């Protein structure tokens, strides 16, 4: 199994506002504290590479305390020059949120060339709330996503210049300099929440599918749908197309880990993902079929998730190194996930570094039968 270190770069705080997204006033943001946090978080990423993590994951979110990376490419740019080995996974750029998606093609190519071909390019629609922050019409989300992805892939793979004339994006000259280093292009990942349409789209193109903060049962179901779709497209999914993102807390003992998980991981769900209800469901963001599936089996709102549910359903993993090893077997052996993205938070920078080291020394080595494999070979393109 491959291990990727994932960070939201949260601005951890308590507040009584109804939403941590879109409307939580930025007067709460203290840039002085932000300076410290950003630099600690970047140090953690660099530390992760030294400890043996295979990849480092950044991501895009807007106007919230949950994750302060409105531009993942800016953070990736800082990492490519401070690391030498790890993949830099941008999970991802919110394509429909861009009025000029060619900029994504350009920036990813820049990062790929500078990093010597270590970049993984996630394509996402952006979660529901981003449509309130960016004012992009959510009824265009899916169509803009497909069109921008097509444009970017063509810009990376076809010799320019060529004209592009889409419904949303039109260019007389598509001819970005630089071109990406990896051939035919950097691997593309699809972080998603399991909509049938996206599963199909990713499977058809061999783009790895990443499930973020999802109960294990649902991961198993979506992986099943993804594998089936791959077979329909005439191939067997590699395990490196099945990626999972789950927060892990490993400590000296189960009790110690439980305490840290309860305190720090639950913040992500209970506060970080607290959202004014309309922000969860911008009109037209989902197809009506997806909406009906959701309504038939409504998931617990993250803000109402209890620690017991989170533990039971596998929203998070905690324990001593031995316990965490056991729990990870479910992902590695039963779900056959090839890549595990994990965020870690020990409550302070120093404690987080300790947890990372414990995980790297006591957990990772037990899952390294594929150490010689390049997880990006033949997938994502």
């Amino acid at each position, binding site marked *: 199994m491959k291990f990727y270190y994932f960070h939201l770069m949260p601005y951890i705080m308590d507040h009584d506002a109804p939403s941590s997204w*879109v*409307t939580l006033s930025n007067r709460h943001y203290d840039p002085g504290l932000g300076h410290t946090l950003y630099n600690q978080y970047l140090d953690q990423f660099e530390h992760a590479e030294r400890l043996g993590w295979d990849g480092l994951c950044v991501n895009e979110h807007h106007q919230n305390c949950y994750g302060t990376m409105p531009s993942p490419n800016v953070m990736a740019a800082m990492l490519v020059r401070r690391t030498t080995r790890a993949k830099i996974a941008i999970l991802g750029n919110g394509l429909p949120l861009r009025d000029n998606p060619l900029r994504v093609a350009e920036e990813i190519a820049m990062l790929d060339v500078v990093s010597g071909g270590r970049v993984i390019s996630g394509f996402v629609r952006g979660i529901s709330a981003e449509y*309130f922050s960016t*004012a*992009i*019409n*959510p*009824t265009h989300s899916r169509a803009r996503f497909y069109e921008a992805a097509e444009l970017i892939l063509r810009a990376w793979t076809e010799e320019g210049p060529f004209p592009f004339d889409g419904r949303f994006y039109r260019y007389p000259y598509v001819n970005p300099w630089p071109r990406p280093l990896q051939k035919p292009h950097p691997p593309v990942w699809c972080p998603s929440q399991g909509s049938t349409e996206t599963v199909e789209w990713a499977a058809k193109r061999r783009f790895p599918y990443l499930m973020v903060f999802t109960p294990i049962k649902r991961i198993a179901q979506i992986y099943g749908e993804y594998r089936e779709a791959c077979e329909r497209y005439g191939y067997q999914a590699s395990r490196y197309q099945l990626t999972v993102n789950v927060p892990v807390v490993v400590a000296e003992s189960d009790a110690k880990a439980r305490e840290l998980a309860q305190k720090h991981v639950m913040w992500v769900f209970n506060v970080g993902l607290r959202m*004014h*209800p*309309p*922000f969860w*469901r*911008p*009109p*037209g963001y*989902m197809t*009506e079929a997806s*909406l*009906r599936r959701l*309504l*038939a089996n409504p998931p617990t709102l993250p803000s109402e998730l209890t620690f017991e549910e989170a533990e039971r359903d596998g929203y998070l993993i905690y324990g001593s190194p031995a316990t965490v090893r056991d729990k990870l077997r479910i992902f590695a052996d039963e779900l056959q996930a090839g890549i595990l993205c994990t965020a870690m938070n020990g409550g302070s920078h120093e404690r987080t570094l300790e947890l990372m080291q414990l995980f790297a020394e006591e957990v990772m080595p037990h899952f390294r039968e594929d150490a010689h494999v390049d997880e990006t070979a033949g997938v994502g393109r």
Partner: protein
Amino acid sequence: MPAARELSIRGTPIHMLQEGRGPALLFLHGAGGAGRWLPFQERLAKTFSVYFPSHPGHGGSPAAEWIEHISDLAFHYLDVLDALGVERAHLVGASFGGWIAAEVATMASHRLASLVLIDPVGIRVDGWIYPFLFGMDIPEIVTTVFHNPMAALALAPPDQSIETLALQYRQGAALARVAWNPHLYDPLLRRRLGRIAAPTLLCWGAHDKVAPLAPCGETWAREIPGARLRVFADSGHVPHLEEPDAAADAVSEFCRLRGGAG
């Protein structure tokens, strides 16, 4: 009880309520108003032949993927008039429906015996930004739209079933297609209002918080040549729901004096 009709308008299926005898009156509903035959319509049907279609994607009308812009809806209603064989109609639109009606009037005033706009949105008004309705939950919407929240009960959903929630989502999406950004207006419309040649009545709730009388109502009154402005003292954004009798009487009185519909 009005008759329910299913029509196909140049290939787009729609659901329409219809009742009454007399000059033709086409009513264009606002968001959430599809298929709600209420005292306002009942009263108008005593004097007019009232046509009350649901916009595509609203109420009983299925979503239409070809609708991308408010002018698509305006052309759709010119098609509706053609399909009904109505040469000239009194056109009455409320809120979002008022926006569509105004677009229609800028295109084809000659098809209108008169135009009544009830608290329309649709133009950019200096000094006003429409509150972002898509970001509001139901209680916030009720307080924003209604001066008398009890009047909102008439629009309350019958239940919380998957069918009802899916309908609400579909209606929200149909509205968002044309009204998310710019929110609730067409940047080109205000300049074009000067083209409206149909006699125009503006009905406005004194307590409208979506599009307040000042500056919104006053702007419309300035931009449409010869428009009359009638204010409803006990209404917010929806006088036809909050003061249905007074609003219906104002419409009837205005339209009766301006015949030629049929």
